């Protein structure tokens, strides 16, 4: 029972029978997902669609990838999409620490053999354990829609390898909804034919290593990776195509990102405040514990720096050292924007001083010429320690 629960808890109906002799570690479905994930990391596609996404487990795994900007799931089971679909929405942490790039996730209810123009121009379309659920009519239409019409740069198709099945006790098909299960030869023949017809090249691999002594049966799951010859999908054609919306959008969500001004400012203002605060505190004279006398020589910032915190490379250190230093006028503390720009974290956010200035001007006090951030040297909270 453990086996059933576990696979379902993870959002997947695993086909390995209860009295299984062969156990995959990690479970086979996870190996398949990991395979797709690795592929995404390697090729960094911007737009990814998962056809037959079921309860969206694969999408959940892919959404953390920073390169993806559009993530789409399609399934014919609307209830399943609705069931866990809204868990794809951004989490609190996504707002507190926004992504670099925008991300929109959309779930469509529809069939993979119907054409919907909103799936045009994708970099990667995955069909994980999908084709074996199609009846012969749909299977015949499938290449025409996915390869011919959608025509993404890359397609990944996985399906059971029936040569592996004899290793399972008394199983003909791994799932009662499977219309067929192919041998490697059958799959490869189909795949090569389709690739040839729609001008793709294909490469075969798989996951789920056969046990020792049975190596000749091949992977438990066979996978075909199709790449479009001539490279990227031509996005220019997309707009010329007539809009065809047959799928029903069940769920859509957009993630906060640094590309959105509001979140960019939020992150920038926070980072600047933090940096200014840390510079301010290390500038403060320190109170001696013993008799309440004041030690008025500012401590060397190097000596008081904590045992942890950002570690800078030599180049970064030099860059910080060479930038204008913070200074005090009366009880005001000034940090030049040029100084702030020298810190790698802030440099990553802002290309130049002007960008930083306009980003923080609404929220953080600046010197009259706008070249430095101003703060009170002493603060309420200093007394607390």
């Amino acid at each position, binding site marked *: 029972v453990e086996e059933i629960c576990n696979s379902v808890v993870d959002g997947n109906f695993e086909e390995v029978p209860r009295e299984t002799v062969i156990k995959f570690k990690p479970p086979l479905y996870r190996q398949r997902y990991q395979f797709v994930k690795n592929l995404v990391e390697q090729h960094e596609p911007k737009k990814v669609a998962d056809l037959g996404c079921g309860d969206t487990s694969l999408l959940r795994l892919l959404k953390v990838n920073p390169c993806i900007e559009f993530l789409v799931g399609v399934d014919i089971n609307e209830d*399943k999409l609705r069931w866990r679909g*809204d868990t794809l929405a951004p989490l609190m942490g996504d707002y507190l620490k926004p992504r670099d790039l925008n991300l929109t996730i959309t779930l469509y209810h529809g069939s993979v053999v119907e054409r919907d123009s909103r799936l045009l121009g994708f970099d990667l379309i995955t069909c994980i354990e999908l084709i074996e659920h199609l009846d012969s009519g749909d299977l015949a239409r499938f290449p025409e829609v996915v390869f011919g019409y959608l025509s993404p740069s890359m397609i990944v198709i996985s399906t059971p390898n029936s040569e592996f099945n004899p290793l399972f006790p008394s199983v003909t098909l791994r799932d009662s909804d499977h219309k067929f299960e192919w041998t490697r030869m059958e799959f490869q023949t189909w795949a090569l034919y389709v690739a040839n017809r729609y001008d793709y090249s294909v490469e075969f691999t798989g996951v789920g290593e056969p046990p020792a002594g049975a190596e000749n049966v091949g992977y438990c799951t066979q996978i075909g990776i199709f790449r479009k010859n001539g490279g990227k999908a031509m996005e220019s054609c997309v707009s010329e195509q007539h809009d065809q919306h047959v799928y029903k959008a069940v769920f859509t969500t957009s993630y906060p990102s640094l590309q959105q001004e509001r979140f960019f400012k939020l992150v920038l203002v926070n980072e600047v405040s933090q940096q200014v605060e840390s510079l301010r505190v290390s500038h403060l004279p320190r109170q001696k514990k013993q008799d309440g006398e004041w030690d008025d020589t500012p401590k060397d910032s190097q000596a008081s720096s*904590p*045992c942890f915190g950002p570690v800078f490379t030599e180049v970064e250190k030099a860059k910080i050292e060479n930038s204008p230093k913070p200074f005090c006028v009366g009880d005001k503390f000034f940090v030049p924007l040029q100084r702030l720009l020298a810190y790698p974290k802030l440099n990553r956010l802002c290309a130049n001083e002007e960008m930083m200035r306009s980003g923080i001007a609404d929220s953080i006090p600046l010197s009259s010429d706008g070249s430095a951030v101003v703060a009170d040297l002493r603060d309420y909270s200093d007394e607390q320690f």
Partner: protein
Amino acid sequence: MQLCTPTSVDLSNSEATSSSGFMGTSRISTNHKYGISSCDAGSTFMERGVKNKQDFMDLDISTREKLAHVRDCKTGSSGIPVKLVTNLFNLDFPQDWQLYQYHVTYLPDLASRRLRIALLYSHSKLSDKAKAFDGAMLFLSQKLEEKVTELSSETQRGETVKMTITLKRELPSSSPICIQVFNIIFRKILKKLSMYQIGRNFYNPSEPMEIPQHKLSLWPGFAISVSYFESKLLFGADVSYKVLRNETVLEFMTALCHRTGLSCFTQTCEKQLIGLIVLTRYNNRTYRIDDIDWSVRPTHTFQKRDGTEITYVDYYKQQYDIIISDLNQPILVSLLKKKRNDDSGAWLAHLIPELCFLTGLTEQATSDFQLMKAVAEKTRLTPLGRQQRLARLVDNLQRNTNARFELETWGLHFGSQISLTGRVVPSEKILMQDHICQPVSAADWSKDIRTCKSLSAQSLNTWLILCSDRTEYVANSFLNCLRKVGDSMGFNVDYPKIIKVQENPAAFVRAVQHHVDPDVQLVMCILPSNQKTYYDSIKKYLTLDCPVPSQCVLARTLNKQGMMMSIATKIAMQMTCKLGGELWAVEIPLKSLMVVGIDVCKDALSKDVMVVGCVASVNPGITRWFSRCILQRTTTDVADCLKVFMTGALNKWYKYNHDLPARIIVYRAGVGDGQLKTLIEYEVPQLLISVAESSSNARLSVIVVRKKCMPRFFTEMNRTVQNPPLGTIVDSEATRHKWYDFYLISQVAGRGTVSPTYYNVIYDDNSLKPDHMQRLTFKLCHLYYNWPGLISVPAPCQYAHKLTFLVAQSIHKEPSLELANFLFYL
């Protein structure tokens, strides 16, 4: 059967908890088992479930039927009627609307709730029906044809599972279970409006407001609930803000290290962080920090569930695509709660400070006036602003097709906003020593009484001022002011002995120890900083070891230019009270009435200790008080200490009045959700026993006071909405049928929206007419001597609150009984 099991509450969350369930986190465990990753989340939602359950428990308790004088009518009639709009809305559904509760069993039995839900949801028979299902209990708004329906479904591996759906009950819309299901439905609907659920509230993260100087974000949102009010089911929504901190634990530690230096860093850091709740940004879970492991670094390895070793750095890269940038940070340790039926021992979660966000406001933050002011400024909403937000929410609910669809499939329709009629009771006169004053505004009569003498004031002859060299000058100029304002108030202030001390807490305490003798009436300390140890150590000594009234003032306060007179007036009033004086009174028509205020809070140091503050009036004019604070371990113990307190208070009354009071009215604040039953079963009987044992015939009433409640009231005027006038009472429609309850507006909300205070009379032998009970309560809101104006609760409640706060924050022990006759805690 119980009203609602925690599992049924799970309905609302079953879909959300599971996100990233199998991703796991860095768990160190003593035993490797599947399904562990969901265990802490499970317990979180259990707690939420329990909270929910407690609300419903309260609502099911019927107190009014036992009170003969209000059984037929609990509404008052005096005062001027006022038309009010509320934040409550009608929920319309067909007359014969019912909810059908089914029980679902599986053959073969399936252990996994997720699988049970998946199978049922994917069955075509139920696919187009509105349903709520938790894996065992199924709720439908349409009845199935058969009482018992047999369905069969196949798991994806071809196993046939038989599902038997048996009708258990048909529930009318007023049933508690039904109300719970309504709440679940509305939570689903608000999610469809792209609102983000935190706890039981919904927030809009796409419109955050920032307070960068305090590293805070505020998410606007709503607290919503569906509940059965006086005569019907209503939907209530109130604007709420979620305060989020844009600060990771690592950033916090780094800043702290800068401040403290390395020598005492680890110690301070542990003191500050342990016990805090953090949010891990990759999986949206919250954890309590139980320990910090300084010996572990992100580059170290831990054992995964499958037994393999992996470094934290690699784990987060692989699992969440997160690169840990600081390799020197220590690891936070969180003890995970045990899963039910799992005896495999405790689980530890190891967390990376860089990936953990702080949540909530620390005590330090809430005591930061600047910060709280900034938050208040951002969140303050005028009645009109609030009404507009509500209108937008309702508009969204009605326009959003998904939301409307969900409502319609359940057969519900969102109805109109409720308006009702309240009453404004007459304003009160303030009685001074030789003058009766009718304040221009009941909100603040400080100007009206400027030239009037207090009712009574002890002369201050022998007293001390402690100050440092730096503050001596300001102490002297303050003293002159104090004598001047004291004079006009009828409070004679002689010159004190001024003692100069060094600027550290120990020096202050040493000086107090050295100079306080039995003749000293009061000690005033001019504190050089708001460092808590000054205040705490002085208060501790002067309430426990050597009980003498004390007055602490921040030097900074006295330095405010042009404010000296008003500050001196306020301090003079406090000092008068601390010496046992009386400032003003209102007319109390009942003779021989004792009013009691009780408040409870948790001790700041040891969270399992309850601090119970009790304050009772000891004269018929309700101007003198007996105050006592008792520390207890459990809530049921609260009842026991009430007896101790009441006996003391009645003795005191007898001592002053040579008689016992004829009536006692107890205002009980600090009542949590679900505690109503405990109050009725333990506290009320204890109070009755202590009255009886004092051979008194006093009649008792007990009123639960709540400052937080869902309803808000506005007056509609010239096409805009405003706060209702002071003294507005609502005792219909927005009240509960089973209770003798009312709302009273007794405070002003400058530029914001006023919150009514909710009163629930749970016991009432006095049989006062509702009118009189309401008016008496209003009168008592005038008697808090720390503020010359109306306050939101009856004065005894506020005194009890002030007392518990002082003890819970600073003293942590029962103050000496020698101070019980003075308002020493003001």
